[in-house]
């Protein structure tokens, strides 16, 4: 490394002088995006923290700083434990359902090159639809009087899917899976295709069957992809709003009232912008905490692999 040091330093000189000449032009180039993002991204992020210590009804211009009043109101709100529980339930169940199925589909598609293109075209379609459109479709499809179950006369399908607490959660998880499993299976497909074929050939010579190959080669090799995909799923599930709002509006009762829904209702329907901002801060903190946690798990995996190599 030491022998390399002088050329590196010499190499830096022209870069620096060039940076001096065109640096100001580059700064001008980045400014429009920077200003735009600061104004509508960073300022609101700081703003939501300030607003969580304030009282505002969202309609009149008076915003008063009232210390911890809004936080107290938010934390003692009887709906909060339920909102946290529902958010956790949606997060955990949607991860548990989506991850194994996406890995299964992704592994299959990676090997079946004949059908991959065909499947990918159709698997992509749910990603193009708005959550509002998907929610409306399922609402009509699952209607106990006019939906698929009633029309086909199949008793098992003919339930009040969105009218009972447990069924509503299950339906929500199904719709989420319908929307996102194709996307995650495409991610896994890409990862599985990166695995060198020689590893499988070696395992085959050793007499490992398909199942053992899957658990001993495929799964460990797609570790990082599992973490990436899980981060997207888990953090993404915190922000489900459109889908829940159009599908159930948080009901029946408060069975599907997740944090984001609770925030919207408190702020824009009950005019309690202060407590709603406090919930938004909780949402951000939970999101950052979960991404850091998952990244740490990923980091450890990274280290152990480097040790192995």
């Amino acid at each position: 490394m030491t022998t390399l040091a002088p050329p590196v330093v010499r190499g830096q000189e022209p870069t620096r002088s060039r940076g001096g000449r065109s640096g100001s032009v580059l700064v001008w180039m980045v400014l429009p995006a920077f200003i735009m993002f600061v104004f509508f991204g960073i300022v609101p992020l700081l703003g939501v923290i300030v607003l969580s210590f304030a009282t505002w009804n969202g309609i009149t211009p008076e915003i008063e700083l009232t210390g911890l009043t809004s936080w107290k109101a938010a934390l003692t709100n009887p709906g909060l434990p339920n909102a946290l529980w529902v958010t956790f339930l949606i997060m955990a169940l949607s991860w548990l359902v989506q991850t194994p199925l996406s890995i299964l589909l992704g592994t299959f598609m990676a090997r079946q090159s004949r059908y991959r293109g065909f499947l990918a075209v159709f698997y992509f379609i749910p990603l193009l639809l708005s959550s509002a459109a998907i929610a409306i479709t399922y609402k009509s499809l699952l209607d106990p009087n006019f939906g698929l179950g009633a029309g086909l006369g199949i008793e098992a399908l003919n339930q009040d899917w969105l009218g009972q607490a447990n069924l509503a959660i299950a339906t929500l998880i199904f719709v989420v899976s319908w929307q996102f499993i194709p996307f995650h299976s495409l991610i896994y497909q890409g990862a599985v295709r990166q695995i060198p074929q020689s590893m499988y050939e070696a395992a085959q010579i050793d007499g490992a069957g398909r199942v053992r190959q899957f658990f001993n080669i495929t799964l460990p090799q797609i570790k990082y992809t599992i973490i990436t995909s899980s981060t997207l799923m888990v953090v993404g599930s915190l922000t489900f709003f459109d889908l829940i709002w159009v599908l159930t509006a948080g009901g029946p009762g408060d069975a599907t009232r997740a944090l984001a829904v609770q925030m919207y209702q408190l702020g824009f329907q009950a005019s309690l912008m202060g407590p709603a901002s406090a919930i938004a801060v909780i949402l951000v903190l939970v999101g950052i905490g979960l991404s850091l946690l998952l990244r740490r798990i990923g980091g450890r995996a990274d280290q152990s692999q480097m040790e192995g190599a």
Partner: protein
Amino acid sequence: MTPTPAGTRAGQAPESAATGTRASRKFAERNWVGGSFAWLWLIVVMVPLYWLVITSFKTQANYFITNPLKPPSEFTFENYQLVIESDFVRYFMNSVIVTVGAVLPATLISFMAAYAVVRGAGNRFLQGVNGIFLMGLAIPLQAVVIPVYLIIIKMELYNTLQAIILPSIAFAIPLSVLVLANFIRDVPKELFESMRMDGATEWGTMWRLAFPLTRPALVTVVIYNAVGIWNGYLLPLILTQSPEKATIPLALASFQTQFGVNVPAVAASVTLTTVPIVLLYAIGRRQLVSGLTAGFNK
């Protein structure tokens, strides 16, 4: 029919060559679990969409008495007529204005920022800005809507289409910069160097060298942002009020209330709003491929 399989096979030739053919085919034949599940899931994905399209062509009376999965014996366009008469064109135009008005500036300023971030690798300010963009990837829109709402009120833009456009641009920036910067980073250094030798300015280099070479990534970014903004529900919900300013996702929800048990009309409204984005996807796929091949042929 013939062009389709030929096209598919041609598109897949390099992939199967990369994976090594014989062994992978042997694996494939044995993966019954994955195979049957892949086809099962294709059915799960397609049934609601199929139901949506065929239902949109049924009369309301016909819908209640026929098998919901059987196509109508007589196609009717009266549902589409009803949707279009319910001010659909206005909502559609609102969505077009918002999407185009946000995607074009967002892509343009993100491209400029990505170029600056890559070229200014030694500049501390530029790297700091890049760090802020990366951090911005983690900010969920849902969490900051209340201050955004306040800012829009203060700017006296509440209940206008600009109110939806401005935050949409801002929230498209972080990921767009990330994707575009990764792509610009792959442009060989020698090309930049030879542009500099020819006396080109940074501005000229950006438009004449980086922009054409980044085209596939630009198409990806445009499609990704367009889909997200076209389908956006939360910003229109909180930043507009009057029906004249509603975009399509918002209008869909109100159609559902308005049409009530007229399921075929609801199905027609959803089908009609989905067509443009599926078309964009179809066109974009081809564009993506041609963009890539153009790059290879140079």
